[in-house]
């Protein structure tokens, strides 16, 4: 009786563990199924490298290069903001802060992660964009720069908490040894702790990047939405995610436009997949380097 019970539990949890695998495979199959019909009419090269996105025009054009560039562009901008902020916070919290400060700062940063993205978008649209427009005398505040700032802030909690994990994996003996040979705190931090946690921190940054590139609502509201190759950070841009969000609701099921939006989703999925694989590889190396095994 007892053994049977245990067996049943085992099965239940096995099924639960494999459920996410089933979802993953299902989503991938669905993405391919819905996006491949496009390439019967539009060559892959024209799709990836075309610079004109006119999906509903009579002479429809499905070039998504401006959308890919826009996504990478705002993600790059977001990195410039979230890396110093995120890694800096992690270093402070883990290495320098007193226990009381830590108890206060850590939950605070985590609250930042719990703000819904539409609220960030709203804030960006109503407050940040008009402010930047007046401050910098721009034609419009809805541009890549504003989107980058918002995404950067949104990615900070992701980067901070993973970078902090990486720091806590650095054995204390490293720090003690460094201090023992006469290095000061700053030298210990920059020459011992940071290099030791380096690949863990890279993982944090890459996961922050996937967070930024996949974000939809905020960029839809803040990035402006012009499907043009950006020439500066102050141009309005249209990332892949916001294109899908804005147009999917009104694209007729089965039309080329509908297939094209799924193809964008597929490309986006592949990009974040690459990011996540990179993060996984780097973090494995990191664990091996510190002798922690898998």
């Amino acid at each position, binding site marked *: 009786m007892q053994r049977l019970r245990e067996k049943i539990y085992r099965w239940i949890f096995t099924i639960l563990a494999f459920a996410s695998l089933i979802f993953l495979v299902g989503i991938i199959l669905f993405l391919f199924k819905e996006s491949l019909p496009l390439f019967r009419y539009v060559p892959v090269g024209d799709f990836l490298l075309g*610079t*004109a*996105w*006119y*999906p*509903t*025009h*009579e002479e429809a054009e499905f070039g998504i290069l*401006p959308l890919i560039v826009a996504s990478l562009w705002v993600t790059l901008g977001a990195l410039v903001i979230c890396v110093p902020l995120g890694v800096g916070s992690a270093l402070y919290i883990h290495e320098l802060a007193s226990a009381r400060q830590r108890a206060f700062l850590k939950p605070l940063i985590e609250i930042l992660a719990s703000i819904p993205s539409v609220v960030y978008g709203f804030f960006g649209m109503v407050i940040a*964009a*008009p402010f930047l*427009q007046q401050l910098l005398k721009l*034609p*419009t*505040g*809805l541009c890549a720069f504003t989107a980058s700032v918002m995404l950067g802030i949104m990615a900070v909690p992701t980067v901070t908490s993973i970078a902090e994990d990486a720091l806590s994996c650095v054995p204390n003996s490293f720090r003690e040894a460094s201090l023992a040979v006469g290095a000061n705190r700053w030298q210990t931090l920059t020459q011992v702790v940071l290099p030791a946690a380096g690949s863990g921190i890279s993982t944090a940054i890459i996961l922050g990047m996937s967070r930024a590139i996949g974000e939809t609502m905020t960029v*839809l509201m803040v990035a*402006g*939405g*012009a*499907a*043009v190759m950006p020439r500066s950070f102050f*141009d*309005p841009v*249209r990332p892949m995610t916001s294109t899908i*969000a*804005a*147009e999917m*609701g*009104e*694209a*007729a*099921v*089965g*039309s080329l*436009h509908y297939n094209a939006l799924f193809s964008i989703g597929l490309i986006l999925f592949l990009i974040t997949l690459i990011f996540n694989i990179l993060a996984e590889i780097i973090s494995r190396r990191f664990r091996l380097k510190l002798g922690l095994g898998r």
Partner: protein
Amino acid sequence: MKQISTFILVTILVMGLVVGVAHAERLVIEGSTTVLPIAQRAAEEFMARNKDADISVRGGGSGVGITSLIAGTCDIANSSRPIKDSELEKAISRGKEPKAHVIAMDGIAVIVNSANPITGLSKQQLKDIYTGKISYWSEVGGPSEKIVVVSRDSASGTFEAFGDLALDKQKVRKDALMEASNQAVASVVAKTPGAIGYVGLAYIGKGVKAIEIDGVMPTKSTVVSKKYRLSRPLFMYTNGKPTGLAKEFIDFILSPEGQKLVDEEGYVSIK
């Protein structure tokens, strides 16, 4: 525990009742977000009078509505543009014959920020601004500011109607900002001094002003008289001649009472 199970039982019973009524007479309306407020309001009024009728109204956009009508998943397709030839061919090949009913008129107002001194443009100037030939307000007699062109996302019926009426089907400049709703266009124009945008008549709000096109202001009377060039009919499509509930509903919208609702929602009645 007992309370909960009673609650669940009652819920199931009530749901059963609702489903029972729904089986009586059901009408599914889907399509254009521009027509949505009219359809929604009319459905509410209609259901208040006919307790048996169950009408569900969904948005989705003109293209989605017509696709559903062809697929047979809706009874009435709302559309802010006439059906396309390609859609008609598809419908005929599936044995459907979409029939158009014009239920209202709408003007597409061109709006600028209320601080903008410009009060009117010619249709040619408007077209040049939206297709990329004109990029500064100084080229049309305004301040030497850059024009921020705001457009709707390319899947909306308003975008397509604007393309037909104002741009002679030419492509909108690539650097135009894209907004997902009439309301969003209005609020971006209200916050951006150099912006120009277009919205349905009902959406001319605070912080923006409509401008004259070829000397004509968009108002209900200029839309009715067709003096204002950027006006369009709003449609409801049915499969063949409407019968039963669909017929009653469309007759209701076309009745003086229905047209009064059209007027109240900010659109232009056809009678």
